[in-house]
């Protein structure tokens, strides 16, 4: 068996360390925005920075960037399902 196939795609240590540093930075940013600024901006930060952090973990730590498209679509399906459930419930809750 080919060496590459045997060991799979190898992500360099450097990549992981860079992603980790970025995650720490984003966390700091998130905490800063939440504690210093008012409600609306804090929620906006939550809704953008948090999925971004999660995305970094998915794509690099969990290797999703290097996986086949069908696996990426499956992840999307799972997340879309949850989003749909929450969304549809809010059609009830928002209009009561």
């Amino acid at each position: 068996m080919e060496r590459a196939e045997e060991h799979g795609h190898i992500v360099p240590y450097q990549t992981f360390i860079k992603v980790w540093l970025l995650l720490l930075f984003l966390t700091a940013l998130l905490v800063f925005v939440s504690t210093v600024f008012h409600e609306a901006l804090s929620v906006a930060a939550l809704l953008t920075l948090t999925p971004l952090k999660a995305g970094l973990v998915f794509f690099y730590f969990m290797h999703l960037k290097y996986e086949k498209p069908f696996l990426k679509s499956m992840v999307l399906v799972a997340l879309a399902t949850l989003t749909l459930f929450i969304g549809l419930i809010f059609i009830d809750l928002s209009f009561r």
Partner: protein
Amino acid sequence: MSSIPAMPHPVHKDREGAKLGMWLFLFTEILLFGGLFLLYSAYRAKYPLDFHTGGQHLNTFIGVANTVILLTSSLTVAIAITAIQKGNRKLTMLCLSATIGFAALFLVNKYVEWSEEIRRGIYPNGPALLKLPDGEKIFYGLYYSMTGLHGLHVLAGIVVLSVMLKFVHSNRITSSDFTKLENAGLYWHLVDVIWIFLLPLLYLAA
């Protein structure tokens, strides 16, 4: 009928299949916690001020510290996998041990955090909790459910990673057969992702 032994066939190791199976399991975890996130969004919309107050009374320092701990543990388990791919068994075991150590530290922090809240009477059916307004009661109900369920998953992760550490040590996981470790890593990263969401929802709600 003449007895003929069952035809032998090569025991296939389907690495991609095992990984697919693991991802499917992770989807179930996403939906499991998803139910809690759903409840959280519903109740936050209903009790915005109470959730704000509740968030203020949580120990933000421990929350952020635990976030850093888990993010770093994700780093160490990822490094462990690259290490085994490169045949560096020592580094693999070192990083796996570090991951387990961080996970344990997370749980210790949790214990300290919860002890303080329980001492103050803020726990399900606790005296101080029952005096709080409804929205705050719900907030703490969700706080304990979400961090509790997450904590159980951290504990399970410690067990799984320890078993993986043992397997690396006994050469059941090698540089050409490390799917188990990869999959254990995937699980651990998801535990981290869930916490990435829990931090702002609970601790930064203020």
